[in-house]
């Protein structure tokens, strides 16, 4: 069997249903096989979008997303998408063509050292030099991508390896001696954590994306209810715990709710689960939660005590650890006073925006989207103000319904990610909340949507600015709006030119109708919502401040 065919057979063995990609000279044998393979291939218009779409597919399903590109520029275009997946621990397998093995290192046409370039942004990568290794490598790649702390894996396959012949032998088992993730927490550490919880007076759960990866939402709810403790979520954790649950304080950090940040700062025990104390969450690190002991549950030992010293580390899968921990807590802490304090904080520092005025407030658009969308709707976001408003004002209650580039903050992510999510769930609504800036970073994917009938709905919160940077310039650079006021095309015409539907909204009273219309049309729809141009995201913790030193956000 030819190498290219072996690749396809291996993808089928790994249960791959869809591949996002773009052809080129060094992947011709693979594309020749794809021509009649029982795999859905989505031809994107820029390789970056292939990686983001595979990523969106993975975030929506929990399965490994697959993208494919040619050597050289095809592969380098993937890198932003690979880095995005790496920062957010998303399982994708990126397959790239490479020049013939005898040309590697010779500066051949469309040659780039792709394993070299991708080394710091992948969990692992491979250059296949011998066709006999191909099935083993593919099997290992999917295994590494999807287990432990997930992440992207790249396989670089020279074109002559794709053409060579060998027997198809699927390895029965995987044995990677340097890779043995820890799934079960240490019983002694779990006992210790249970004791700390019993003794605590002001415990708080700090939930990150690891809970979604692990599928531990149910256990987090059980733990929170059992010990009657408030819950805060990271951006990546949104969806892991229902926002409308009475113990939920929403998102914490730079644009978190003020009551979440105050509660964290006042707590005496932080139970961190699948979260990594990122700088956008902790603010000034030496001022973070000064009276709190910290229990940290994470599958990646290197996440523990990286940014902040942890009192009780528990390395393991969140779900497994939580099941044991919930059992182990015999004496419940008395948190009634603490819950009262938290309730007071909620009343004192509510999440608000000014509802008066004639213009369209972006927060209002998000609220109405939440009111009108079905419960299982998947929201993806671009990066910047649109992302923060989508995080603050939409009430997520189901894991994997909020898809956003958290760690890397990649503009241009949300639209192709929505394509991946919609391909995974054609029967569910998928909405991309975008900004006018970031939407233009992968606007060409309108063609992909139209050609493949991928009916995603994009809501552009159009303020004519690169809004988040403009906000920082307003607050910290004396309103010197250096290159943040942008020229936009007519998005309705652009949508129509691609064969999609465009809707423009300029008045507040048109918002609801536009949402209803967009959600009812069986086509890709771009809704160009002209929002108040200088609306800011509040509250906000200025960079380097303690997280209870928030500005703005008072009614």
């Amino acid at each position, binding site marked *: 069997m030819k190498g290219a065919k072996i690749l396809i057979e291996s993808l089928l063995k790994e249960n791959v249903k869809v591949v996002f990609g773009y052809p080129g000279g060094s992947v011709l044998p693979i594309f020749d096989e794809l021509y009649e393979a029982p795999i859905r291939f989505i031809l994107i218009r820029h390789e970056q979008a292939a990686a983001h779409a595979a990523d969106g597919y993975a975030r929506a399903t929990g399965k490994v997303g697959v993208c494919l590109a040619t050597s050289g520029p095809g592969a380098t275009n993937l890198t932003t998408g690979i880095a995005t997946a790496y920062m957010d621990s998303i399982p994708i397998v990126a397959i790239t063509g490479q020049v013939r093995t005898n040309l590697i290192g010779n500066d051949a046409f469309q040659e780039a050292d792709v*394993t*070299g370039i991708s*080394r*710091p942004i992948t*969990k*692992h990568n491979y*250059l296949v030099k011998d066709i006999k290794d191909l099935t083993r490598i593919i099997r290992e790649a999917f295994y*590494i991508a999807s287990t432990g702390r997930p992440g992207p894996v790249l396989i670089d396959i020279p074109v002559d390896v794709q053409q060579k012949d060998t027997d198809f032998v699927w390895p029965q088992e995987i044995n*990677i*001696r*340097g*890779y043995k993730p820890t799934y079960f927490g240490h019983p002694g550490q779990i006992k210790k954590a249970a004791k700390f919880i019993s003794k605590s007076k002001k415990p708080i759960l700090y939930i990150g994306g690891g809970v979604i990866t692990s599928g531990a939402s149910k256990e987090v709810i059980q733990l929170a209810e059992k010990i009657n403790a408030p819950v805060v979520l990271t951006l990546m954790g949104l969806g892991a715990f229902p926002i409308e649950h009475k113990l939920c304080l929403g998102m914490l950090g730079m644009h978190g709710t003020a009551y979440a940040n105050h509660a964290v700062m006042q707590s005496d025990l932080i139970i961190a689960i699948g979260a990594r104390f990122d700088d956008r969450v902790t603010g000034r690190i030496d001022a973070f939660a000064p009276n709190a002991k910290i229990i940290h549950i994470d599958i*990646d*030992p*290197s996440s523990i*005590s*990286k940014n902040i*010293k942890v009192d009780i580390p528990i390395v393991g899968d969140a779900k497994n650890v939580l099941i044991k921990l919930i059992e182990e807590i015999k004496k419940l802490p008395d948190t009634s006073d603490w819950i009262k304090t938290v309730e007071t904080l909620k009343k004192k520092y509510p999440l608000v925006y000014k509802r008066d005025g004639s213009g369209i407030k972006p927060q209002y658009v998000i609220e109405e989207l939440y009111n009108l969308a079905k419960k299982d709707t998947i929201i993806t976001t671009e990066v910047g103000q649109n992302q923060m408003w989508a995080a603050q004002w939409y009430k997520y209650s189901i894991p994997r319904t909020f898809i956003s580039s958290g760690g890397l903050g990649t503009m241009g992510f949300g639209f192709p990610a929505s394509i991946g999510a919609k391909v995974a769930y054609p029967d569910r609504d998928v909405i991309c909340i975008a900004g006018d800036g970031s939407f233009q970073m992968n606007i060409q994917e309108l063609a992909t949507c139209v050609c493949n009938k991928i009916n995603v709905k994009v809501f552009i919160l159009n303020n004519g600015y690169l809004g988040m940077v403009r906000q920082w310039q307003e607050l910290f650079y004396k309103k010197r709006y250096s290159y943040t006021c942008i020229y936009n095309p007519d998005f309705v015409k652009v949508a129509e030119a691609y064969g999609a539907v465009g809707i423009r909204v300029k008045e507040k009273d048109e918002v609801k109708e536009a949402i209803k219309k967009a959600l009812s049309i069986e086509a890709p729809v771009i809704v160009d919502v002209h929002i108040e141009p200088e609306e800011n995201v509040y509250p906000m913790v200025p960079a380097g401040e303690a997280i209870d030193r928030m500005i703005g956000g008072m009614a």
Partner: protein
Amino acid sequence: MKHIISLIVENKPGVLARISGLFSARGYNISSLAVSETLDPTTSYMTMVVNAEDERVLEQIKKQLNKLIDVITVIDFTKKEHIDRELVLIKVTCQQKDLDKLKSILKKYSHYILKVLQDTVIIEMTGNQEEIKDFIEDMKTFGIKELVRTGRIAISQ
């Protein structure tokens, strides 16, 4: 503070690049690095001396190294009874008349005189860090023309 960390790694191309890339990407310092094959041809042994300002950085270095798929074992010699050695090759200026003086100083050290040239002696010396420091100081009195060191290697007791 300096720490000796040894790694057993897969003997594959690109592994050294992964390790050195990790150090540069995360801003850690390597003061020396020695790589060799082991009795098992599928693995290599790397001994590195790293500079970590505190315990937390050292812990992070070990955890990050462990995370690499091609790293099989990480051994930290900081709290382990161990013997460490380094090998030095040195060219010192030495006229024929001073040779006896040099030899008598060298008695203190584990060494071989590899070559005696007209006004130069090439010496191989092994020792721990203290001994090497003393040795180099002693050789300076003659004049060092060239000096190469292997980097430290260590073995547990």
